């Protein structure tokens, strides 16, 4: 094996996957063709999942806090896993109020984020529809999604008697606290803006900017078809609604 042959072999064996797995897919994914609703469906125009909140900044904080080590944001198609069928991960099941809203993750779901936080492991649940679950589960209670999320980040096991269905959620949470996202201030003279979370006597809790961005991002995680039906061409789940009902 001569030096020239060696270098040529190295360049070829690296260059081919570099081209085929990195360069070309990068180029193709950069220019995905917009998907349109079909002729004759109730909705028209381009399909863009709309998200509401501080997506870009919140996504950055989510990454910096390393949430992707324990949480995923990927509902895999059924050939790759059973995520679509797990309760409330992919959306809501059919009720009297709405059709089945479950769907798998789409490429447009990560619009506005610099990097898609697919996640590395599921020590904690998948968060693709965290906002949706929270909204549903807090219906009829007097807690807002923001307050629940702030409480969860500050002290995940502090939500006393908080039940969802038959599960007492709070006590079983193994999420470590993220106290660094909050500032403890004296409650007198604080001038409002304190969170409704009890800590010691005379002290109150104020979220940092990063906490606010993160909570806004987390609450915006609603990647299902409620209010945003799929065009037929993207619908791989026969249960999910493709028309407004």
């Amino acid at each position, binding site marked *: 094996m001569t030096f020239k042959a060696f*270098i040529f072999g190295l*360049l070829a064996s*690296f*260059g081919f996957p*570099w081209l085929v797995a990195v*360069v070309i897919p*990068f*180029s193709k994914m*950069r*220019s*995905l*063709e*917009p*998907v*349109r609703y079909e002729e004759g469906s109730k909705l028209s*125009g*381009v*399909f*863009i999942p709309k998200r509401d909140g501080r997506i870009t900044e919140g996504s950055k904080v989510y990454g910096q806090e390393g949430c992707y080590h324990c949480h995923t944001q990927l509902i895999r198609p059924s050939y790759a896993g059973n995520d679509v069928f797990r309760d409330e991960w992919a959306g809501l099941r059919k009720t009297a109020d709405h059709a089945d809203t479950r769907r798998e993750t789409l490429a*447009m779901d990560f*619009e506005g984020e610099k990097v898609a936080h697919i996640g590395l492991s599921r020590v904690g649940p998948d968060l693709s529809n965290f906002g949706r679950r929270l909204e549903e589960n807090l219906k009829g209670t007097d807690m807002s999604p923001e307050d629940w999320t702030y409480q969860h980040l500050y002290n995940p096991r502090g939500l006393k008697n908080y039940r969802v269905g038959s599960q007492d959620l709070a006590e079983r949470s193994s999420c470590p606290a993220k106290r660094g996202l909050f500032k403890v201030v004296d409650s007198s003279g604080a001038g409002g803006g304190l969170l409704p979370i009890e800590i010691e006597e005379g002290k109150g809790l104020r979220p940092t900017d990063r906490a606010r961005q993160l909570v806004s991002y987390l609450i915006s995680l609603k990647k299902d078809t409620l209010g945003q039906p799929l065009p037929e061409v993207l619908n791989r789940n026969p249960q999910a609604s493709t028309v407004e009902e």
Partner: protein
Amino acid sequence: MDHTRDNPLKRFTAFWIAILLVASFGIACLIVRPITHARVDSAVKAAADDRRAIRAQIDSAQEQKINRTSLDKALQSQAQSLLTSKPTPVKPQAASQ
């Protein structure tokens, strides 16, 4: 030791060959950049194009319905009469309540 293989010139060329090899894929990335960054059809842009198309439709439909010349004439004659008429004071009305 084989002295012909190791001299300052050989070392100099070896250094630059090494730099070139190491940088080869960095250079390749920069070469393919114009190709990979050629076209972007974002959904947001397509939706914006849709909205602009609808706006253009509305504008042209309105344009067609409006008779610009008679509108101009009417505006002109009204403008003329306003210009030539003298402003007259309005008698204050008796207080009613």
